[in-house]
């Protein structure tokens, strides 16, 4: 079995394809996944089920492993009989699988046998038992009963141990999420996050919709990752349609993707400074973020970059004629950012606050597949732009900053360095972009084809899987945003820290609730 797998892998490397699908007998799944994860060291980057009863009378489960050196996605597909509705759990061996399996159990009713934590994840305790919304025969119009069950949180007992419930509604203008701290005095023993308060059923909503409409949905998955999400969606559809987008469009997409990263990181830096009451630096970063938003507004008329992407390219040549002003703005942001960074790094009181706060160990980061700046701050050297180069990233030179301590300081430094890299990338892209058209329209796609779209959103690796249906519609759209991977790592990073440091640690992760809850 494993020999055959190795042979197929070598073939794939030789042919230079980046998606390899293998179908495996459900009994073998534990063995083969453990082999891939522990022996070959491929992390599990996504896992999802698909109701394929209309195609083959069975449910399919896809396990996605990534070979990050050569840029290959290895997808293990297994078919499960609809009479049994069980699957073998791999969470005991591969911790990153735990949340995916719980998600599949909630939405499809496929029970992972041998899962260490069988509680619900996506659906809250008020959702009635036996209703599985992602099955194709689920009726969206039907009103459900209101189940009244208690939410089961992990209990920590002992002398002086008590629980602090925080949320779901918070004091700031942020998204909803409930945090249950178990603390002994100030130090945190355990943190559990109850999310999915903004579960909107995006994946279900997209099924049966046209591929054009779903582009608008993908732009609205998470407000500040508009471009990264729509880009991943466009990539998947373009791959299915076998459309090669024009070179100029590739550069324009890079410029907007980096602009989005810049605004997002500047926002995080604002938050980190604000949480330690460093008003000057906080407002400084906020001002820079405002400048970056203004630049986005000037370019495409929308600060959050909606309606920039179109299937097969970008909607318009947004950059043409504005090169000089854009370069001026970028230089202005860069100069001010350099000054501000110099000031905050020479403030020893500030550095004392962020150093050694909220350490995420490298082994935990790797085991739970921490992605993006969070992973890179904990020594996981991985950036989608390098491992799976898309658009024009292959043609542009840039570094991937990696720090090893895993604390707030490292996450902050990764973000600061990435701000400068984003600025450089935008300047380079404007200087080297070719002329030409910006759109190669996608008219139609074949039914029941599937492909991945991978982007590095400001928060990290963003994986979308699209399967088309008949008449240019979507059959299944699986979105896995970086926040889904990073939420469990936050809960590990806060352990042993004190309660007043939690907001700071949380800000340094800056996870999206909407992107996780879908």
């Amino acid at each position: 079995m494993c020999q055959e797998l190795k042979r197929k892998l070598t073939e794939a490397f030789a042919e230079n394809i980046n998606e390899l699908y293998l179908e495996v007998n459900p009994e073998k799944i534990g063995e083969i996944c453990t082999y891939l994860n522990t022996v070959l060291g491929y992390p599990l980057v996504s896992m999802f089920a698909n109701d394929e009863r209309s195609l083959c009378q069975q449910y399919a489960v896809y396990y996605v492993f990534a070979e990050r050196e050569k840029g290959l996605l290895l997808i293990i597909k297994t078919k499960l009989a609809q009479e049994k509705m069980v699957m073998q759990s791999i969470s005991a061996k591969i911790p990153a699988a735990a949340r995916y399996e719980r998600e599949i159990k909630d939405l499809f009713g496929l029970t992972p046998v041998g899962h260490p934590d069988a509680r619900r994840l996506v659906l809250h305790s008020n959702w009635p038992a036996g209703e599985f919304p992602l099955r194709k025969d689920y009726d969206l119009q039907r009103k459900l009963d209101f189940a009244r069950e208690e939410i089961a949180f992990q209990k920590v007992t002992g002398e002086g141990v008590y629980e602090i419930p925080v949320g779901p509604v918070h004091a700031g203008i942020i998204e909803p999420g409930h945090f249950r701290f178990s603390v002994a005095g100030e130090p945190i023993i355990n943190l559990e996050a109850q999310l999915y308060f903004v579960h909107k059923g995006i994946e279900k909503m997209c099924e049966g919709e046209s591929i054009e409409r779903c582009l608008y949905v993908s732009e609205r998955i998470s407000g500040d990752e508009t471009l990264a999400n729509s880009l991943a969606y466009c990539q998947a559809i373009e791959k299915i349609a076998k459309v090669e987008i024009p070179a100029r469009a590739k550069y324009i997409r890079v410029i907007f993707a980096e602009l989005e990263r810049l605004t997002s990181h500047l926002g995080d830096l604002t938050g980190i400074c604000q949480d330690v009451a460093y008003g000057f630096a906080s407002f400084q970063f906020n001002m820079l973020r405002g400048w970056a938003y203004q630049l986005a507004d000037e370019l495409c008329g929308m600060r959050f970059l909606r309606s920039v992407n179109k299937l097969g390219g970008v909607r318009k040549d947004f950059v043409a004629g504005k090169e000089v002003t854009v370069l001026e703005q970028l230089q202005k942001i860069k100069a001010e950012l350099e000054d501000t960074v110099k000031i905050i790094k020479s403030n020893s009181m500030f550095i004392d606050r962020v150093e050694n706060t909220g350490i995420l160990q490298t082994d935990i980061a790797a085991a739970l597949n921490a992605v993006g700046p969070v992973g890179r701050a904990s020594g996981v050297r991985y950036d989608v732009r390098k491992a799976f180069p898309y658009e024009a990233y292959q043609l542009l030179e840039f570094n991937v900053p990696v720090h090893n301590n895993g604390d707030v300081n490292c996450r902050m430094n990764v973000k600061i360095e990435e701000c400068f890299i984003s600025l450089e990338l935008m300047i380079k892209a404007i200087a080297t972009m070719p002329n030409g058209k910006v759109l190669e329209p996608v008219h139609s796609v074949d039914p029941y084809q599937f492909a991945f779209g991978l982007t590095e959103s400001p928060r990290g690796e963003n994986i979308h899987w699209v399967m088309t249906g008949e008449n240019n519609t979507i059959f299944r759209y699986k979105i896995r945003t970086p926040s889904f991977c990073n939420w469990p790592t936050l809960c590990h990073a806060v352990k042993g820290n004190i309660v007043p440091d939690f907001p700071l640690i949380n800000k340094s992760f800056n996870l999206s609730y909407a992107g996780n809850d879908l």
Partner: protein
Amino acid sequence: MRNIVYIVVQILVIMLVSPLVNGIIRKVKAFSQKRKGAPLLQMYFDLFKLFKKNSVVSDVSSWAFKVTPYIFFSTALAAALLVPVSTIVTPQEIPGDIIMLVSVLALGRFFMMIAALDTASTFGGMGSSREAMISSLIEPSILVSLFTVGLICQSTSMQQMMEAMKGTGIPLFHPVYIMVFLALFTIILAETSRIPVDDPATHLELTMVHEAMLLEYSGRHLALMELGAAIKQLVFITVLVNLIFPHDQLIAITGISAVVLSLFLYLMKVIFISIAIAFAEVFTVKFRFFSIPNLAALSFILSFLGFLQYFVLGGSNV
């Protein structure tokens, strides 16, 4: 008659000036952030608005929650009566000294902590326990620094200490007073929930100390708590400015105009210290919660050094 004039002047000045201190601090901080900031008188508007509103009281709370705003406000006012704003307007005798001052403020704080626990909300208890820790660390250094001045002036009565300080020339030229000044300044930052210890502008409940205890209050009750805290802040500033920067010896005239001039000078000193506090807030960040003992220890060491120096160098007549 003298007593009545003293009480009226004291209460009017302290109550009217105390919200201004917050306004000045916020304005200076806003300027450091390239903002215009709220108007200087914003806190007066806020208090005026809050006093017109009814309070919402949780139905699971007890009497402690309802009496606390009144107790906290009256203890702050009582403390204000122990610290003359001007040595020209003084009563025949103030029936209380610095020990009384510290205890009266502690009484108010005790009730505030009880009230925060009373509603059994998530954040009130955290605020109370943090406040208890900070205040128990800071109180020793308040007493030691004030005792040092008291030793020099041969009295623990604030009025007599201020009188005696008028004859010391410029106190800040003397090492003892430098130590006492630095200790008192640190105490003000800690006691009035300023930045290295607490962040008065934060919205993050998990990091709050003072604000966490006020979360359940609304309307009139909140106004009393806010005004009480502002008065307490001004009382500490008054102790600092009138001991370390005495001004009444400069006034050569007598009568009503002397009183006005004295109050004017007092106001200038308060504004100066408010700006200094704002600068301290701008240049520091919030400490890690468990680093606050270091700050308290620093303040205590400074006041204790001042205390020892008195025996080595002597205090008066620099």
